[in-house]
């Protein structure tokens, strides 16, 4: 068990040369089961404490440990030693004294992970005649985050995320197909199993019997999972750090219109459609909703304390560490979203297809991490979809790429659906959401 007092004590008696210091202590416990054929096939449990430290003398340095026997003062000294080796004389600013303690919410009875898993498995096995096997993963993650600094700041909160995912194997005419989908919430009882089933069936049916297709510019409907997939990388254009460096495709556009008038993009600390919540960031900054795009106008950016100072904006509670997949532990404080999503509109999927009338419904995309350039905004994303005629689904098409620029894509949104979907980033450090979006025109390339 972590002894918070020894960390607090170290901050109260810093060595003379260290002007200020901070600990961010993250404790994560996770329990997971995988179920197939009503049997639990895999079971996992973890209990990890991570300690991030920063110390400032003339400059700011960082250190990280999972070694619980390392003395707190030694971790601070290590961070300070690192600070002495850097050239830049900018100090990181720490938040001033403040206290916040958020106890775990009163979570309703969870029932049994296993029961929810086999219910979802049964639902999926009956949802489509081609589905032969299902693997369901049920997971509960408990995260507690504490930020302590030498100015007397002491904040902590705890959250619990309940997560259900399903992967199906289907066979049709001798060909095999795989589809997966996941939802999270504060409790399993709040997860809509029917929604998981409908999404999987929709994506499965869009894979059958693909036909040839002619490249060109088409009106499109991007499924909510496609826009989420794009934003999972594209959010970086809204980073205050990248904006300031000039390495964002929208650098210099603050206050300008960069998207269509029906586009609102917000970053919030919590949302009813996910179990994730971010009461404060890793610097201890609390913030409410930030409207990044309001009717297409870029009104603000995602900021930590340092980038906010540089841009003369307010910190927005977006100090984070895990932005992208990395083979190392990221310790420097950068900018990450909390729950960033496109606000939903009024139209359900059927209405959007009717409005589309003739065009392409892009049902699935993959590998956007490698196919979006944040500086130029250019993208080229592999995907598959379904041709729409008279507002109805017709032939499926595959091995497509959609290409263009992110700013054109945001400007060409003509309607947003009511089907908001929020997905966790793989490292569980933020969430991205979007409803299905109708795009005036989009370049589609096909073989």
């Amino acid at each position, binding site marked *: 068990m972590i002894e918070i007092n020894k960390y607090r004590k170290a901050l109260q008696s810093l060595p003379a040369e260290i002007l200020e210091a901070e600990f961010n202590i993250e404790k994560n416990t996770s329990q997971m089961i995988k179920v197939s054929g009503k*049997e639990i*096939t*895999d*079971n*996992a*449990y*973890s*209990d*990890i*404490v991570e300690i991030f430290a920063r110390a400032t003398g003339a400059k700011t*340095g*960082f*250190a*990280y*440990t*999972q*070694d*619980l026997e*390392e003395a707190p003062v030694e971790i601070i000294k290590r961070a300070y030693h*690192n600070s002495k*080796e*850097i*050239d*830049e004389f900018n100090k990181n600013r720490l938040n001033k004294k403040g206290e916040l303690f958020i106890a775990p919410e009163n979570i309703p009875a969870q029932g049994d992970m296993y029961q929810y898993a086999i219910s979802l498995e049964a639902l999926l096995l009956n949802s489509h005649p081609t589905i032969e*096997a299902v*693997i369901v993963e049920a997971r509960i993650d408990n995260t507690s985050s504490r930020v302590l600094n030498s100015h007397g700041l002491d904040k902590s909160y705890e959250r619990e995320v309940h997560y259900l995912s399903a*992967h199906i*194997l289907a066979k049709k005419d001798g060909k*095999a197909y*795989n589809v997966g989908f996941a939802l999270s919430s504060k409790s399993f009882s709040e997860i809509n199993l029917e929604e998981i089933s409908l999404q999987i069936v929709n994506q499965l049916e869009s894979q059958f019997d693909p036909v040839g297709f002619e*490249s060109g510019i088409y009106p499109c409907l991007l499924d909510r999972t496609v826009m989420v997939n794009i934003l999972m990388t594209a959010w970086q254009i809204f980073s205050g750090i990248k904006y300031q*460096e*000039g*390495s964002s495709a929208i650098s210099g556009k603050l206050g300008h219109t960069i998207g269509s008038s029906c586009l609102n993009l917000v970053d919030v600390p919590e949302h009813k459609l996910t179990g994730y919540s971010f009461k404060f960031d890793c610097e201890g900054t609390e913030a409410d909703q930030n409207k990044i795009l309001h009717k297409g106008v870029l009104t603000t950016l995602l900021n930590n304390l340092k980038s906010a100072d540089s841009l003369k904006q307010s910190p927005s509670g977006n100090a984070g560490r895990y932005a992208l*997949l990395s083979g*190392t*532990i990221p*310790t*420097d404080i950068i900018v990450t979203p909390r729950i960033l999503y496109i606000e939903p509109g009024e139209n359900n999927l059927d209405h959007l297809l009717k409005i589309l009338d003739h065009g392409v419904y892009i049902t699935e995309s*993959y*590998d956007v*991490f*490698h*196919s979006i*350039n*944040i*500086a*130029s905004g*250019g993208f*080229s*994303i*592999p995907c598959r979809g379904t041709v729409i005629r008279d507002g109805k689904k017709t032939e499926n098409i*595959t*091995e*497509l*790429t959609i*290409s263009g620029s992110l700013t054109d894509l945001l400007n060409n949104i003509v309607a947003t659906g009511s089907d908001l979907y929020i997905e966790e980033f793989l490292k569980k450090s933020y969430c991205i959401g979007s409803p299905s979006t109708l795009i005036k025109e989009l370049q589609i*390339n*096909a*073989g």
Partner: protein
Amino acid sequence: MSVDKRIMCDIFRTALSTGGDFAEVFLEDKDELRINCDEGLVTGITTTRIKGCGIYILKNKKSVYVYTNDLSRSALLRTAKRAAEFIGGSKENAPMDLIFNGNEPMNPNKIVIMPSSVSYNQKKDILKDMITYAYSLDSRIAHIQATYFDTDQRIEIFNSLGSYGQDRRISSKVRLHATITDGISYHDDWEDYTRPQGFEAFQTRQDYLDFVAQFIHGLLGNISAVPFESASVPVVFEGGNCGTFWHEACGHQLESYAIVRNSSDFVGMLGKRVASEKVTLVDDGTIPGLYGSAAIDDEGSPTRRNVLIENGILKGYMIDRLGSRLLNMAPTASGRRQSYTFPPTSRMTNTFLETGEDDEREMISSLEKGVFVKKLGGGTGGREFSIAVKEGFLIEAGKLTKRLKGLVLNGRGIDLIKKVDRVGKVQVTEGGSFCGASSGLCPVTSYQPRMRISNMFVGGK
């Protein structure tokens, strides 16, 4: 060693107390250093210390994995007890007094200069040298960041069969991230100079300067690059890093993780023709000097060479311990994981296409129209794969003409590897990178001689 060997027997006794038939303890102690240099100024230095323990239990075809970074005796026994509860059952195994034996193979990557013995200043000088040199190459560079990493991972693996293995894996890397502009548009990209070595990776200055020049010239080529009208054309893949094609198009599908889940087109294809007869594909974790090499896999077995496809015939899969139970096949020393926070699963190491007999120049000169892929970026695997092209060129009348932009390759791997119509004579390795999958990010290389596919879809404009 992080945990006293005497505690091990207690952990195994607890872990197997409910009927598990196999248990493994994975201990990790790892140090990492990162130095960030922005425009020639060192802006950040971070040291990280990773330390923890994973306990893995198998009972027939069921698995349990638990992990913690509290390495006190009581916490480890509590964690083992939790794992035993998950595996279920009530059978009480006889107490064990295990004696651990291992042949402790040497890591194929020899270390000459331990990174921890080198001062921060020497490492900072390398970064500043690379940035200064990059700026000297072209005035259109808008911004450059260079980040130095070194890692020193020590692992120990004990299992209930009495087997013991250990390995020490050291690597050094610099990531260059640059933004260029012609005053109208901006392009940015990054690339890694990765070596499974200590500081000797930087002893020959020309090596890392060549890397800088290659990266910057590749990035600058984007300014004059032209869009490509999507089409199905012959595609020539350059030797070296284009081996990523094999990694994504069929490597992941040859891992037992995909085979047991029936999410691979190679299920049931052993002994059958799955590729052109020019294709011999190998995964080998023993090769000195390569990033995917190690003394043992992350389940303690000495690494080995595995032939996956031989002259177009499917010969084998990459199989971890659990996969071997589920497939009823022998494991192939392919159990890998990023760290103790992941259970092991079947993964690639150094995956490569064996050399062939074809002339490298003829592959291009014989084409009226096609695409030459010089360098690939990252991608995703599965029945359908996709890979971004970092550098691609148009082939017209047997010659490389224009640099192309925005190319993406996607398709069904098992269909495309049947269309390999040329494989060159010269093998070219690559520096390596991380591969991400269910057991985290693992170091790999993927390489090949120059190779041609007779016809495939290339996505562009």
